[in-house]
Structure formats: C-alpha cells, structure tokens
C-alpha cells in the first residue's frame, strides 16, 4: 500500500475535517478553561466532560472522514474509542464525586446533602450524632459491597 499524504485530500473532505478538528479541540479547551474558572469541586468536574463527549466525538468523526477518504475504504474503528470512552468515564467520575461527597460529609460540610434516609424499619439506626450515623452508613455500605 502506498502511503497517502495529507496533500492528497480533496478540498470537499479537507474542509469538514478541519472544521470538526477545530470544534473538537475548541470544546476540549473550553472544558479545560472551565476547570480553571468554576468555583467548587462539584462544579469543576462538569467541565472536562465537554472534551470527553462532543469534543472527542468531533475529533473521531474527523479522523474517520480523513482516513476513509485517503485510503478509499471505510475506516470505522474509531467507533470503538467512543464506545469505550462512554462506558469508562462514569466509573472515574463516580469515584471522584463519591470520594468528595464522603469527605465533605465527614467534615460536616453543610453544602452537601445528608445521606439518604434509612429504609423503613432500618435495622441499624444510630443516635443522631453525625459521626455515629456516618459509621453506620459505612458499615452498611461495606456489607453491601460484600
């Protein structure tokens, strides 16, 4: 296979590829700016999701278009990157958010909501001291994991 170079790309494909790349990169940059500008931790974790959703989407479509036109056959394996990104991002985000929430609750920060009320007839109702409640919650959570 002869190596195709960027100069071989016809103009009708070069324009959308360039636009999509710029748009994707712009979204990623905006997300990074948000990481700088927004106030609290919970607000800041919203910002990078711009880059991991539409941002990466634009870059992947640009890549598929570019290589499909250059190699004159459909190049689709970028779809897998999108799938794996969508499936794995929630894991990291949940881990971060829950860790932050756990610490804030431990410190008695009143900006975060209290843990959910125990189910009806909850078996382990501690006294109203927050640390006791926290400990009960931790135990319940551990038991649930096992």
């Amino acid at each position, binding site marked *: 296979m002869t190596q195709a170079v960027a100069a071989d790309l016809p103009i009708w494909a070069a324009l959308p590829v360039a636009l999509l790349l710029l748009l994707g990169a712009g*979204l990623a940059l*905006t*997300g990074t*700016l*948000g990481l700088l*500008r*927004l*106030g*609290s931790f*919970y*607000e800041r*974790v*919203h*910002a990078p*999701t*711009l880059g991991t*959703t*539409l*941002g990466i*989407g634009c870059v992947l479509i640009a890549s598929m278009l570019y290589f499909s036109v250059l190699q004159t056959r459909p*190049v*689709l*394996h970028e*779809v*897998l990157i999108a799938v794996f990104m*969508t*499936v794995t*991002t*929630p894991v990291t*985000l*949940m881990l971060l*958010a*829950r860790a932050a*929430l756990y610490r804030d609750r431990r410190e008695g920060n009143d900006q*975060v*909501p209290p*843990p*959910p*009320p*125990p*189910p009806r007839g*909850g078996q382990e109702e501690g006294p109203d001291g927050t640390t006791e409640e926290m400990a009960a919650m931790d135990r*319940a959570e551990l038991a*649930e994991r096992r």
Partner: protein
Amino acid sequence: MRRVLPHPLLTACLLVMWLLLNQSLTAGSVILGGVLALGASRALVRLEPPRARFRRPGVALQLAFIVLRDIIRSNIAVARIILRPGRGDRRSGFVRIPLDMRDPYGLAVLACIITATPGTIWVEYDSASRSLLLHILDLIDEDAWARIIKGRYESRLMEIFE
C-alpha cells in the same frame, strides 16, 4: 441453543469489536473472531452475571437519538456557562431523585447517559432507599430535572431492560 451459544448478543458484539479492531472482513478474521467471541461468552457463564433482558430495539434506537441530541445541547449550554464572563446568577446544586428502576443494567446505562451529558453528574445511588443523587451545574427547577430523568430516560430504559 442456550448451551451452545449463551449470550448471543454479547457474542455478536465481541465479534463486531474484533472485526473493527482488525479492520478486515476476511474469512480468517471472521473465524478467529467468532471462536474468541464464543469462548469469551462461554467464560462469562461461569461468572454467573445477573440475567439481562434486552427488548424493544425500536425504543433503544429512539433513546439513542434523544441522548445524542441532549449531548449536543448540553455541550453548548455548558460551554456557554464557562465562557460567559462573570458568575451571573447561575446556581448549581444537588437533586435527589427517587427511581423505580431496579435492573442493574438499566442503572448502568442511565449512569452512562447522565455522565455523557455535560452539566449533570451522577453522585450516588442508594439501593436501600432507591434514590439517585445528582449534581447539576445550572439548577433552575429541581422538579423539572426529576421529570426529565424519569420521563425521558428512566421510563424508556425500564421498557428496554425490565
């Protein structure tokens, strides 16, 4: 049938993934991918995952389009919030939403949807009280968010998975 080909959908997905990774449709890669996919899906039987049901592909397709549209919309909205000078009168906050869905696969897909739309983050799900805690970047009306999550996503996911 179940014994020869457990998890037919998973097997098909793995085969497609293999073909995409190898970027070829030759007989060799189809056979090799098929053997690998079959082996992997049979190995999964040993792990005894909770039973999954997948029905109504039409609803799933509709949901995919709704999510795609919401991703684009919320990307624009969040980009606007970030680039707008000053703080404005925007308020962010937590919302607790009671969920009716119990199916673990449905919940997993809901987590992917909520994470994939910028502006909403899945913070915690409590299986005892069956409530979901979200953090929302631009919180105007808490009830409206509950309606969106329950009406737009949860009802469709329940149709598909339960």
